[in-house]
């Protein structure tokens, strides 16, 4: 209905293969970015910026990372939080020990470290598949956290293990207010999302999907199994690593192992599934859903207790949240196993063919 595609023809392959082939989409995305970069920082309040939008972006990035591995390359992983942790702590150390490096390069290097760890723990994927692999990645989760707590050098021998993240200074400009942190995060996430999209629509992405869909055929047409799988782990971990660094620096403000528990890994995995396996857009939708759900619920309960006048104990509320959250997950999986991305896809198709039903 909103789509008016008549006359949007492609006379080169470049046009045909652009990320948003439909003009209306390009306009929408441009508008969205404009709002996100300019309007939001001006209008949104502290709470929204620091408690909702920034974490949403960070989770989206981590989800993107896991989606590359699980959604595109078909390798199930439960160690996401560990890779994030590596990113966070390495970022801390780079900033701490090589201040001259600058924040962004430190983050990138942190991501590279995460990638290295990812490759190591990706090695089993060459021999084992499915849940065996998933469980194997748990080893990473536990080992990494253990290592961080045990190896003093990593935490710079801090007693508590909880470290305050250093100020973010880029070219002398200090990112200290929520708005600034948000913008920084947004910029990084936007760029990395673009890179991910490019990667997934070119040879690498196809190789990933080929391995996912039918590895025997993939190797028969010459796709190198080992390189592809490890690359998937590396890239995925890199994204998670950077996400971890952002998590510590632009969201928590502290670097601490407790932030990167198995629970977080599951959260990210949920975001992938709810958002849509093997979809970049899905990574954002999923993150938004999981981030907003608890907030929505607490608001809801707040309203209820306010309306009914009776006081609901905090324990009850948190348990109810837990239940509803879990139930919703299940419900969602039953209703739309392909996630929000698929729902969006269907809606879009309808809009494009309107007024025809199909």
């Amino acid at each position, binding site marked *: 209905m909103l789509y008016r595609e008549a006359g949007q023809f492609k006379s080169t392959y470049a046009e045909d293969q652009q990320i948003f082939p439909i003009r209306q989409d390009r306009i929408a995305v441009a508008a969205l970015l404009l709002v996100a970069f300019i309007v939001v920082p001006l209008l949104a309040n502290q709470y929204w910026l620091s408690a909702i939008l920034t974490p949403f972006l960070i989770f989206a990035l981590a989800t993107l990372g896991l989606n590359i591995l*699980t959604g595109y390359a078909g390798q*199930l992983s439960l160690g996401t939080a560990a890779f994030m942790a590596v990113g966070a702590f390495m970022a801390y150390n780079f900033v701490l020990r090589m201040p001259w490096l600058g924040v962004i390069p430190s983050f990138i290097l942190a991501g590279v470290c995460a990638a290295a760890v990812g490759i190591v723990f990706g*090695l*089993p994927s060459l*021999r*084992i598949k*499915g*849940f*065996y692999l*998933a*469980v*194997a990645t*748990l*080893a990473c989760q*536990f*080992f990494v*956290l*253990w290592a961080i*707590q*045990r190896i003093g050098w990593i935490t710079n021998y801090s007693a508590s293990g909880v470290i305050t993240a250093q100020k973010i200074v880029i070219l002398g400009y200090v990112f200290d207010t929520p708005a600034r942190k948000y913008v920084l995060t947004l910029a990084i996430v936007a760029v990395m999302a673009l890179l991910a999209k490019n990667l997934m629509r070119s040879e690498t992405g196809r190789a990933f999907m080929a391995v996912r869909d039918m*590895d*025997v055929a993939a190797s*028969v047409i010459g796709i190198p199994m080992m390189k592809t799988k490890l690359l998937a782990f590396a890239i995925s971990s890199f994204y998670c690593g950077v996400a971890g660094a952002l998590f510590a620096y632009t969201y928590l403000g502290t670097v601490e192992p407790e932030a990167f528990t*198995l629970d977080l890994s*599951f959260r990210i*995995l*949920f975001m992938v*599934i709810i958002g849509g*396996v093997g979809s970049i857009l899905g990574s954002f939708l999923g993150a938004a859903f999981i981030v907003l759900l608890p907030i929505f619920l607490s608001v809801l309960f707040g309203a209820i207790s306010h309306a009914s006048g009776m006081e609901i104990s905090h*324990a*009850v509320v948190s*348990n*109810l*949240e*837990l*239940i509803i*959250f*879990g*139930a*919703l*997950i*299940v419900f969602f*999986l*039953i209703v739309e*196993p392909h996630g929000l991305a698929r729902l969006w896809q269907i809606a879009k198709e309808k809009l494009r063919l309107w007024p025809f039903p199909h």
Partner: protein
Amino acid sequence: MNVAFFFEVLIGGLLAGVMYSLVALGFVLIYKASGVFNFAQGAMVFLAALTFVSILKMGINFWLALVITLGVMVVLGIGIEKIVLRPLVNQPPITLFMATIGLTFVLEGLSQLVWGSQPHGLELGIPDVPMEWLSQKWNINVSQFELFAAGVAGAMVAGLALFFQYTRIGRALRAVADDHQAALAVGIPLKHIWAIVWAVAGFVALVAGLMWGARNGVQFALTFIALKALPVLILGGFESVPGAIIGGLIIGASEKLAEVYVGPMVGGGIESWFAYVIALMFLLVRPQGLFGEKIIDRV
């Protein structure tokens, strides 16, 4: 090095391993029958233990409480199968897996909502003290309770074995595990089977819950023992009951030994991951696990 101490550790490890096996069994049963990797097993254990204790606390006698809890678990198992898994049939395994994680949250929330979240002690009347004669004779300290737990575990495995061998349902179950089509062909309604399996899993969870609850107290931490069971599973293979037992023993023993002999060198706390590393090492050599069959890629 002190041989007696070594054996003490070893036996302790083996017995701890049995405890792992108890949990692992629950996973195996369900995976075998319905190919679902039921991450909620840990939560079920927690729920079982918590329910049982809470009922005891109401002053109901032990056996009655046991029966009631068993009832609850069976109903729960069947409910899960009907509400969660039936609608997801023919979905890719990962989807089912995710569903069980969602389920975990529900169960955790539910049990604490109903019974409150404060920890309870659980007294089965078997003291967690070393066996005198052993300690006197060889100066090896082995907990009575752990022996008892081992006994229970052994009994349950035996029971399950008999159940599989000699009951119609049991045989049906094996048929399903081997080949769903075949099972259908011989006229066994799959959904019944699955319901039953979940019920049985509930029972196993109860037993595990009692043992672990009695050992570490009934508290939220119980949910994490699922994580303890996972290495056992990859070691023993998701589909093999004996695998679960042997795997448990290996993990338990090696973990304890490592904890005692290797731990200090690296600053301790290695039990959180050591089991996984063993399992992993093992997998790299034998991808299909201890008892799993070899997978051949057909072209």
